């Protein structure tokens, strides 16, 4: 396993595009998640109404235990950047025909795809670890009082955030393998949201029960939108095991299907 990961990283570590995209991604991830309060302050200063209607200091954006769901949801928005990197990495192999040479040199097709999957795992774990520490530190800074009894309540959102990334990157990898062209794969990745939404809204009236089973919907359901609760609405503030199971199923399918296509 480690050997396959080393093979794929060797291809990426000397690839400038990889460093640019990953550098931008992790920089944005760290900065954006840590500067939510500054963003709220900026909103309050820019729009006069905003400050008068809401007292931003009353929004417990970074308070334990809200911080876990808030930050993991926000971080999930950036996963598109990683997915584009994954697509570039796999479609390059087809464009340069290096996948063929890798197989001639003694890799099996399964090993080749697994080497890409392990890189996806590494990227997802790194993001999770980064977000975990940002949440921990900002929680310490902003929480009015800290009690170990509830500090880690909701920290399991970090794990479902990890699954959200990994499932999405597996989906992107599968697209790249099936389409083999970077531009087309990226366009399809973007439009798959649109396509899924169109299908969902059309069947929502008839079969609402199957909506959570759609691949991208299942990924979205892993970390549900938390902010509605600040407008006193009911939200799902726990990790739904059904959502995890469905997302795991799709991840498994998108990893297995290119191996045995």
């Amino acid at each position, binding site marked *: 396993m480690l050997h396959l990961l080393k093979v794929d990283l060797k*291809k990426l570590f*000397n690839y400038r595009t990889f460093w640019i995209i990953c550098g931008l991604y992790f920089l944005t991830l760290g900065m954006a998640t840590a500067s939510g309060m500054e963003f709220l302050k900026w909103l309050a200063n820019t729009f006069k109404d905003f400050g008068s209607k809401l007292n931003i200091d009353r929004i417990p954006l970074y308070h334990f235990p809200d911080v876990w769901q808030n930050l993991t949801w926000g971080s999930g928005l950036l996963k598109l950047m990683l997915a584009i990197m994954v697509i570039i990495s796999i479609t390059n192999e087809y464009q340069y025909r290096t996948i063929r040479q890798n*197989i001639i040199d003694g890799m099996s097709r399964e090993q080749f795809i697994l080497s890409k999957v392990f890189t996806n795992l590494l990227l997802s774990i790194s993001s999770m670890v980064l977000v975990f520490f940002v949440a921990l530190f900002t929680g310490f800074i902003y929480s009015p009082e800290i009690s170990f009894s509830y500090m880690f309540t909701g920290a399991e959102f970090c794990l479902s955030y990890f699954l959200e990334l990994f499932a999405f990157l597996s989906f992107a990898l599968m697209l790249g393998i099936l389409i083999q062209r970077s531009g087309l794969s990226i366009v399809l990745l973007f439009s798959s949201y649109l396509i899924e939404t169109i299908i969902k809204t059309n069947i929502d009236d008839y079969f609402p029960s199957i909506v959570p089973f759609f691949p991208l919907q299942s990924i979205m359901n892993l970390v549900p939108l938390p902010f509605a609760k600040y407008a006193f609405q009911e939200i799902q503030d726990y990790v739904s095991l059904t959502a995890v199971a469905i997302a795991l199923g799709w991840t498994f399918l998108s990893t297995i299907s290119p191996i045995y296509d």
Partner: protein
Amino acid sequence: METVLSISQLTKTFGRITAVNKLDLEVKRGQVFGFLGPNGSGKTTTLGMLMGVVNPTAGNFSWFGKPVTHGTRKKIGAVLEHPIFYPYLSGQKNLELTALIKGAPHHHIAHVLEAVELTSRKDDKYKTYSLGMKQRLAIASALLNDPIVLILDEPTNGLDPMGIAEIRNIIKKIAADGKTIILASHLLDEVQKVCSHFAVLRRGTLMHCGAVDDVGKGEEIVEVAAYHDDLALVLQEFSGTLSQKKENSNYLIRLKEGFNSQDLNRFLFDKGIIAAHLLTQKKSLEKQFLEILEEPDHAIKK
């Protein structure tokens, strides 16, 4: 001698086109095996199947007498069609990657770079290499794991005469180390110069398989010229003449088995004719190759 590669009834069809048709072939250890055929005769498809990147339609093959796994390919160094590398990586980094995949020791990299004389350019990006350098890097990468068998597919394609000579020297050097080499090519001269055995493929069918040294054995053709008016008639009298043909001012005599140019010379001398020109033509591989390709489909030699 130990069999390195054994192919039986290997077939590949693409739709209605049969690229490789029931191919049987054996390559023994230490042979430098030339794989000949015009463009599109199925050479690369065959090699692709042997290297696991093309799925055979029917038939099978075995390397080293064992069924094939992806691990088998690590013991084979292969370059199919064009050299393929990551353009944004340097030659050195590309080889490091190949070494990692093949499980070759790291210190082999410097050694193979030296063998193909690329050491001075090893830190430049692959995309800046000339075609000859790319081909040489491909050979270096095939040599990385000290393979038992080396497969080279048109290694001199598109090279200038100097590049061709360089590659040829490298192949000869490798062959001298006792490695088995399978060399696919349509350059007959190249095969005759470096190979010990060869096979000819035409439209996916094996037309001939044998030793390069056997080319030119059998009947002999002698070129004769003499200042004598009735030379044609005299030559016809010679009991060893199978057929004769006039070419420019010379006569081409095809001799029966058991006769050679000495017998012909003695015969002429006895008749009082002194040959002004006497030359035994050695049949070139090119000539034999063209003959083989002209044979009708059903006349498949073993």
